[in-house]
């Protein structure tokens, strides 16, 4: 029996196409994945992401714990109300999960990790937290919504509890604020501006969902979430990231805090040697020049050697196929992708195709 979020009754009554995702029954789309994608690029959309795992960490040992657990350094969060993106590594340097961690108090943090990796993440976190003065509290009952798009914050702000509206509107990227069981962060997974909200009370969350829709915000499913994040060049755990690959070969070197050198996070020794030797692979963007659609698992042939498509699909904003691919580190220029037994031409690009409604790649290259 798959799990249902508190918003599930709304998905059902809206006639959403439902799919199983990481043990959750989630909306794939509410009629048209394409319309939902365009709504987020041009106007505003809301996603029910309550399936994601929210973990609160508190205690005098929380800071040291997270400085050991994560390849990024929570000491960058100089005061409460800031967040950062990073990876939790295993001892071999492979990515157990990618996540966002927010500092919510002097010795309090909130982590949001993936739904599909929940069990292994919690087991890993609890195992490493056990000897330390830190409590691990999963907020399984909370509603999490992502409101995204150029008009998202403007439309959602008046619907927030009074007092929260001003502080939410003032948030910079990756900053967060809290009030009366509402947590608002200026984060997202679409390449557009917007908020991710965690709402403790289910009734309040449902009312907020209804109010957003009444304000003209488009409900969006996991289908549009995937095409939006792919266009934005954002990684999906299980496809672009996994335990057999380090952040250095996954386009996430920027999330590794090497300094201070004495911070000995889990996986550091392994990725330090990989970094010294020079990572052999990287995560590149692919823009298909020929017709067809690139898909996960297809082979990529570059002048520097072979690679593989980690995420591929149709990019509605560009009207053609794009992909993320793990390729030799010095691959550049043109390449070929094996699509259904045929070799098709593609161009290697920086893996950010669309941001804030703007196309970032040269479609005529």
């Amino acid at each position, binding site marked *: 029996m798959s799990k249902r979020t508190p918003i599930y009754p709304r998905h059902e009554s809206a006639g959403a196409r439902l799919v199983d995702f990481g043990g959750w029954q989630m909306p*794939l*789309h509410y009629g048209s994945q394409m319309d939902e994608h365009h709504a987020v690029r041009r106007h505003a959309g809301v996603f029910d992401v309550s399936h994601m795992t929210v973990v609160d960490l508190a205690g005098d040992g929380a800071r040291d714990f997270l400085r050991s657990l994560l390849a990024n350094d929570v000491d960058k969060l100089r005061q409460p109300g800031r967040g950062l993106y990073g990876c939790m590594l295993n001892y071999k340097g492979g990515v157990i999960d990618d996540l966002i961690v927010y500092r919510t108090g002097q010795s309090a943090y909130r982590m949001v990790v993936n739904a599909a990796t929940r069990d292994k993440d919690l087991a890993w976190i609890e195992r490493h937290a056990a000897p330390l003065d830190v409590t691990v509290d999963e907020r399984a009952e909370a509603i999490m919504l992502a409101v995204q798009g150029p008009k998202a914050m403007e439309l959602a702000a008046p619907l927030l509890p009074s007092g929260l509206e001003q502080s939410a509107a003032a948030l910079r990227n990756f900053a967060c604020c809290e009030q009366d069981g509402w947590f608002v962060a200026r984060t997202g997974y679409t390449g557009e501006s917007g908020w991710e909200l965690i709402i403790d009370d289910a009734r309040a969350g449902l009312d907020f969902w209804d109010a957003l829709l009444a304000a003209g915000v488009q409900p969006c499913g996991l289908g549009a979430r995937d095409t939006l994040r792919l266009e934005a060049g954002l990684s999906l755990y299980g496809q672009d990231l996994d335990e057999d690959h380090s952040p250095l070969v996954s386009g996430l070197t920027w999330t590794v805090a090497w300094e201070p050198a004495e911070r000995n996070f889990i996986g550091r020794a392994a990725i330090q040697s990989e970094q010294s030797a020079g990572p052999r692979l990287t995560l590149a963007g692919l823009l298909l020049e020929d017709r*067809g*659609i690139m898909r996960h698992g297809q082979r990529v042939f570059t002048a520097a050697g072979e690679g593989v498509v980690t995420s591929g699909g*149709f990019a509605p904003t560009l009207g053609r196929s794009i992909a993320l691919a793990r390729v030799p580190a010095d691959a550049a220029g043109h390449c070929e992708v094996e699509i*259904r037994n045929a070799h098709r031409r593609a161009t290697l690009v920086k893996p950010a195709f669309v941001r804030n409604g703007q196309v970032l790649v040269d479609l005529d290259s």
Partner: protein
Amino acid sequence: MSDVPENLRYTSDHEWLRLEDDGSVTVGITDHAQEALGELVYVELPESGSDLGAGDTCAVVESVKAASDVYSPLPGTVMATNESLAEQPELVNGNPYGEGWLVRLQPTDSSALESLLNAEAYTRFLAEAED
């Protein structure tokens, strides 16, 4: 409930066939198939003049979700393909039995058409698949 027109023949792979006055056969995918695939973003069609055996891949339809082969239900020669689909693959979603047709074949043996499902049998097939 998906649309299953009376005058067509069907396969268990969710293709439809229509016998034209000139003896050729038009092939497409059913309303059920387009609904299950989701919004189409790319359709690959065979070359006109190519010969297909029964069961050969005669088209590939790709949706936002996945790629799916369309198999030639009959042996024959490709007379024409729906060129509008290059720019507008979504025609298959909007009108799978009309503007969203895929391929027109000249069958080498059109008697095989009679052995395919009629509308009633296909409707029953869909109902059983849902149980």
